[in-house]
């Protein structure tokens, strides 16, 4: 009998092209997602070497990082941004790559449209020049971010040089309490695993708490695996996965046959992981980051930690520096921290369920007078769905701005940025210094927590929220 294998083992074995003596193995890449910021130099490399895209039909492009989220009929004001978008267009045309362009109904954040269009499927290998490619692992794919040289390598060969990563089972028992979301869960896990606890590993999230999560919640969890250092996070496909995919544009024509194949992917009983840790979903409370990396996080009912209480000297100096940058005092209750801005969006939390959760908090309330709040749907489809449900009117009636799809203020490459010193409750994935704008202060939270903070003008425990 063959040895029991993990989900990672199965995908790896199936995609191993060759493992030549003295070389790193080559693995086949099923889907390559491309955006404007990390691809121009790769296409240029192909051009210089006279190479073509080996499998354009497996390659999908969309502009997302660097695009305005205001009226799409207006020209892009920044000439350098415009050149980058124009370059993506020209490259897609020249190399025969399908582009979901600005103005296309299906344009959106690359990690939102992949699953949404059925480009992402269980058992696939998926890469993109973006570290949040881990998102796609939620559907049982092996998906990870690569650099531009590797983008060029995949374009030219449809393969990647890769040593097999180690496997790390993160098992979550129990269930989440009401008001506690997938975002809170993953922030909690990062806080315990640390920013580099997953380095060198692919995380497989398992256990009853994970199985209970809906498809979009699973995407939120896998999305942030990189913030714990893991290039990929994955969740075995199940009926929730299959129900999510059925009927999507680019899934296999013989869907039932595909489901039969996908159903063999979950890790076998007795399969061995290189490392395992177990957590309890019931221990998680709504989370708020206080520092400048995602592992610097506490529950909303806690206070800003005191660096002096930290055992490790490097943690202490990082925390002191973070508090200085964030303009926070140790001991301040998290709920007493006032905010200036709210951003609901990003590849972590811009899907329809995220917007529904935020809208249900906001309904009947108004954004606090000192706060500027913004909702940026993850894709054109999410935007239209939200508008069909009237969510846009809930947000705008409360005083939120309702924008076009893109990465927006998650990384602030486009005009959506924080001013120096501004403090933001953000549903995005990184609270690094200057991430949302030089001198800006980012606190990572769930969509419901961000919405409640917009109304109150400070953080508040969503578990006590009075829904109208």
């Amino acid at each position: 009998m063959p040895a029991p294998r993990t989900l990672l083992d199965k995908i790896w074995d199936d995609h191993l092209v060759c493992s030549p003596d003295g070389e790193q193995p080559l693995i086949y890449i099923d889907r390559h997602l491309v955006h404007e910021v990390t691809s121009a130099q790769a296409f240029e490399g192909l051009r210089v070497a006279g190479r073509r895209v080996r499998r354009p039909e497996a390659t999908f492009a969309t502009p997302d990082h660097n695009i305005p989220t205001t009226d799409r009929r207006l020209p892009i004001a920044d000439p350098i941004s415009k050149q980058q978008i124009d370059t993506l267009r020209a490259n897609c045309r020249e190399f025969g790559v399908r582009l979901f362009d600005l103005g296309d109904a299906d344009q959106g954040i690359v990690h939102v449209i992949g699953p949404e269009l059925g480009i992402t499927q269980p058992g696939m290998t998926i890469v993109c020049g973006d570290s949040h490619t881990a998102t796609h692992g939620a559907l049982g794919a092996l998906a990870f971010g690569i650099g531009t040289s590797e983008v060029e390598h995949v374009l030219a060969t449809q393969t990647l040089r890769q040593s097999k990563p180690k496997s790390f089972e993160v098992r979550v028992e129990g269930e989440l309490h009401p008001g506690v979301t997938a975002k809170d869960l993953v922030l909690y896990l990062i806080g315990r695993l640390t920013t580099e606890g997953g380095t060198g590993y692919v995380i497989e999230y398992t256990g009853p708490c994970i199985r209970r999560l809906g498809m979009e919640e699973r995407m939120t969890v896998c999305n942030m695996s990189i913030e714990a250092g893991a290039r990929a996070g994955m969740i075995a496909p199940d009926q929730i996965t299959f129900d999510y995919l059925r009927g999507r544009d680019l899934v296999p024509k013989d869907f039932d046959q595909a489901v039969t194949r996908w159903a063999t992917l979950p890790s076998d009983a007795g399969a061995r992981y290189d490392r395992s840790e177990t957590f309890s979903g019931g221990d998680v409370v709504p989370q708020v980051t206080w520092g400048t990396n995602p592992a610097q996080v506490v529950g909303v009912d806690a206070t800003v930690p005191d660096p002096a209480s930290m055992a490790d000297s490097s943690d202490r100096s990082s925390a002191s520096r973070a508090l200085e940058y964030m303009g926070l005092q140790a001991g301040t209750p998290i709920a007493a921290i006032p905010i200036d801005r709210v951003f609901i969006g990003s590849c972590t939390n811009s899907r329809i369920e995220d917007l529904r959760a935020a809208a249900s908090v906001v309904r009947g309330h108004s954004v606090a007078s000192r706060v500027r709040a913004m909702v940026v749907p993850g894709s054109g489809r999410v935007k239209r769905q939200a508008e069909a449900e009237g969510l846009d009117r809930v947000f705008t009636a409360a005083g939120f701005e309702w924008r076009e799809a893109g990465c927006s203020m998650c990384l602030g490459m486009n005009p959506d940025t924080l001013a120096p010193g501004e403090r933001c409750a953000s549903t995005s994935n990184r609270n690094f210094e200057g991430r949302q704008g030089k001198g800006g202060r980012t606190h990572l939270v769930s969509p419901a927590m961000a919405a409640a903070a917009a109304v109150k003008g400070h953080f508040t425990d969503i578990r006590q929220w009075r829904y109208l």
Partner: protein
Amino acid sequence: MQPFTTHTGNVAPLDRANVDTDQIIPKQFLKRIERTGFGQFLFFDWRFLPDGSPDPAFELNQPIRQGASILLARRNFGCGSSREHAPWALDDYGFRSVIAPTFADIFFNNCFQNGMLPVKLDEADVDELFRRAAAAEAAGHAYRLTVDLQACEVRDDGGFTRSFAVDPFRRHCLLEGLDNIGLSLKHVDKITAWENAHGLSPLQGGAT
């Protein structure tokens, strides 16, 4: 790709952990479509004051560290995004090697694609290098190290020698400055065989 064999140069100590790619090259500089010219933006938000002048408090702006080509840092260097602009900026600024206890995976990988060598040493050894750099600088001169990929060791002229581990294939590619794509395309028959075995339609191929 530029090869990396052995490099001797001045060390710039950057005593910080979790230096993320947003610090190495802030996003406002990712709009360029070239691979070159990013050095002027390296550590931009740390390096320059709001008026555009160099911040005298920033580690790399110390006069004694000008011209340094080996960056010494704390753990989890290069965490965050996949932007290859980070090693491009370090390289363009003049760094040929980064030494730290641990690196983020994508950044680590990206260095090898650009003829730069990231070296992992034990935390205690990195501590020792920080001490030696501080002592040298206190004595008025920059600390010099040799990073030798042929011997897989880091050494100074004061008795410090440590070997480091590196994937043999990556080492080979770096020593020879090999074109990774060209190397992989030697296996094109295997790639085609994989495609055939998996029922993929014959290649349509993009325009060249």
